[in-house]
């Protein structure tokens, strides 16, 4: 048994009076694709954001690749280079071309030479199938293309883990497929992935494990088979019922 790449112990997170995460323990193994599902406002996104300290936990400990993220004097920026993140609304840097968006991490955070960073960025854009859009600005790209550039931007840092925070929720239905394809490809390449999504088709097909979160707790976890066809908890059943109604069987 190798050590888990992410380890979360007794995580709590409050915003003022409001407790969003009420005690979560979780381990993610290297190469695992973990899908987190659940109603909105139940702490799924916050859980992801705690892993790279975009939100700082109120209580509990988190380790990423052996380093304790929650230790008092952690170098946050160093840990973030190991954790790529993809957002619901892409957040590409609007004043930069696709190429510059992908280059800026390696060149400014890792201090990579310009030419090398350029090569790397082109390679990553190729990987998401967008090399021909290298010179385009975000405003000139479709939503699906933007999200693929955002994935390339995260990959350029050679992260150990990728966090996906509802990566297809802001996309028109016909653009979702191209983003999911890139994510499936990453999964096949054994990237460790934590994915918050409502795409049940993706969850069934790609994930190794699914977590159902509600109201700040992990209610149930298990393999896709188990969770979709044989859920233990009534709330899981209800949620999956609603989601299937909304998004269809293949999500």
């Amino acid at each position, binding site marked *: 048994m190798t050590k888990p790449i992410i380890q979360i112990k007794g995580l709590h997170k409050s915003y003022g009076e409001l407790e969003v995460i009420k005690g979560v323990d979780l381990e993610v193994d290297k190469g695992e694709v973990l899908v987190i599902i659940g109603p909105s406002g139940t702490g799924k996104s916050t859980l992801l954001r705690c892993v*790279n300290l*975009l939100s700082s936990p109120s209580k509990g400990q988190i380790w990423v690749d052996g380093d304790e993220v929650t230790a008092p004097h952690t170098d946050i*920026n*160093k840990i*973030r*280079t190991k*954790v790529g*993140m993809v*957002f619901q*609304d892409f*957040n*590409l*840097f*609007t*004043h930069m071309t696709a190429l510059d968006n992908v280059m*800026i*991490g390696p060149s*400014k*955070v890792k201090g990579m030479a310009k030419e090398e960073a350029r090569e790397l960025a082109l390679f990553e854009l190729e990987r998401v199938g967008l090399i021909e859009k290298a010179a*385009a*600005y*975000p*405003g*000139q*790209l479709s939503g699906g293309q933007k999200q693929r550039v*955002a994935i390339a*931007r*995260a990959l350029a*840092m050679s992260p150990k883990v990728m966090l996906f925070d509802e990566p297809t929720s802001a996309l028109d239905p016909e653009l979702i497929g191209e983003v999911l394809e890139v994510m499936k490809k990453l999964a096949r390449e054994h990237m460790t992935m934590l994915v918050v999504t409502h795409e049940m088709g993706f969850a069934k097909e790609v994930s190794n494990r699914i977590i159902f979160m509600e109201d700040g707790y992990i209610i149930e976890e298990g393999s896709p088979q188990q969770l979709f066809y044989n859920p233990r908890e009534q709330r899981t059943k209800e949620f999956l019922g609603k989601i299937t109604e909304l998004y269809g069987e293949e999500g």
Partner: protein
Amino acid sequence: MTELAEFWEMIWPELGRGLVITLRLSTGSLLIGLLIGFPIALMRVYGARWMKTLATIYVDLLRGTPLLVQLFFIYYGLADPNINQLLVRLGLPEGLLVLEPLTAAYLALGCNSGAYQAEYLRGAIQAIDAGQMIAARALGLSRLQAIRYIIMPQALRLVIAPWSNEVAYMVKYTSVVYIIAVQDLFGETRRIMSTHYNQMTMLPFVGMIYLVIVLLITWGMGHLEQHFHIPGLQIDVERG
């Protein structure tokens, strides 16, 4: 026609001198304003609480009081004998704050403009989607790096439009400094009018000079904005 040419020949040396002073005063005050406004805006958006308070007080004070009051305060107020005594007691040179009219004009216009420029820049920074900073930090950029490489390049583009207003305002506002005997374009105009009693020729004429300068600035700033515009950004569409 010859009459007009003669008149022009007569007034031009003085008017030209005044024009040069107006242009210098505008440029200099805008630069002073930028040097003040930039850090004030950063303090207001990113600073610790005390920095925010300090910056807010500065902005409110200078935007909330008349420019003329500020100008008089700097020119007449600071020359007060009591202040002079205080300076001497503090071991500073005597008459340090007894300023030349032109110096006082630069300071008053610059400090005043700084407050406005700070507000324009703050508005521009805050208009940028919060996701930009979050994405930058998630990549591992430090806060300072994120401000420098991600936020500022976008904010500075956004600030060009309000800033061109400030430039145009400044050129016109400089005309108040005649009141502390700076011989700017308007100061010279008043002198010419007081000897020739030709208000109805001089005022439209000088008004036109201001107008031409302002139009040139607006045109130039428009080009600057075009030059730095980001392809495909929403702003294009809105402009149609």
